[in-house]
């Protein structure tokens, strides 16, 4: 029974960790979670509305604004930005450790 429970925990932990890291990988492997920002969206829309009046050559190109969802390694705040590898995967790892280390002696008994 104990073996079955441990196997279940292992599958559960893997089931949480694997998609978590896959999502992190698929969204750009960023350090912090980022959600689409309405201000950035506004900036993207208006980009070049004024400077574009001078032609391509008149100004150095600015990097495009990255306003996509990024599932980061660490949370970027409280609320939806908290969803991250650490927040989702952390408890899963903890759960796995607790399930596997229960009952095991951490320190040898004295004497």
């Amino acid at each position, binding site marked *: *029974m*104990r073996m079955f*429970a*441990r196997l*279940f*925990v292992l599958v*559960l932990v893997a089931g949480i960790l694997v998609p978590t890291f896959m999502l992190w990988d698929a969204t750009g492997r*960023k*350090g*912090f979670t*980022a*959600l*689409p*920002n*309405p*201000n*950035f969206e506004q*900036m993207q829309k*208006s*980009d*070049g*509305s*004024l*400077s574009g*009046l*001078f*032609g*391509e*050559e*008149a*100004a*150095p190109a*600015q*990097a495009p*604004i*990255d*306003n996509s969802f990024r599932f980061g390694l660490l949370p*970027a*705040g409280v*609320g*939806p*930005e*908290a*969803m991250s590898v650490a927040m989702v995967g952390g*408890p899963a790892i903890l*759960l796995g450790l*607790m*399930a596997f280390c*229960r009952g095991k002696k951490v320190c040898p008994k004295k004497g």
Partner: protein
Amino acid sequence: MKSLALVVSALALFSAAGLAIAQPAEKGQERRQERSRQSSAPTQEFPKSLPVPAETAKKGTVYYCITAKERQITLHSDAPVEQIDGYSINVVGYAVAGPKDSPAKLQAGEWHLPVASIDTGNRMRNKHLTEAGWLDAAKFPNIIFKLSEVKDIGEAKTDETTGATSYECTLVGDMTLHGITKQMTIPGAKIAFRKGDETTAREAAGDLMLVSCKFKIKLSDFGVSNKVVGQKVAEDIELTTKLVHTTVEPSKGEEKPKDAAKPDEKKDEKKPVQSGS
């Protein structure tokens, strides 16, 4: 059996956390939008213009920086741990054009970037940026560039599609950041002029001028140094600016300095700048 109980309680914990984070569709969306607005620093009001001292206004045609319309500045940090970009649309300032035969030889110019307006897309990071260990917005609310000279002005190039005339040049001026002022030389800058017409009027009234450049600043030169600099945040920050100005003074309502030029006085001096087109 105990392990199973542990798993069930952990799952319950996950569900509770998920429910706490997720919100009902409509309310959640409103909250998310509100939160995003907050995350994007500009919750506070920023100045719409920078007053032009009367003495400076007498030097030539004044061009006022158009603020809050499009992205004016990008700050890029390329550190080993991560890349960070910050943007602002709240730069205010002015530039005084040069004589007709050399309009790009600006007679004066000053631009202010409110530190609190820099949006990196991360609420925590935006907050940190304004704190004492970083740019200390409470003490030093603005990053200031005061132009002292435009040199190495290249030949005028006219864009055939827009009719704008641009000049490559080097800007020399004093950059004040975090209360420390350093002289900076910015090669490869561009100054362009375009006469107001129907097309430009859709975006902004008056004759237009663009000042654009790309340059790097070293944070430690301006007294910004902590253990994060060099790891999560690069020591050298790259700034890309595109500042569009107009001859039309921004709407009134801003407090002006005592020596600021009166609109009536300036009317006579506001001659269209020779754009070369």
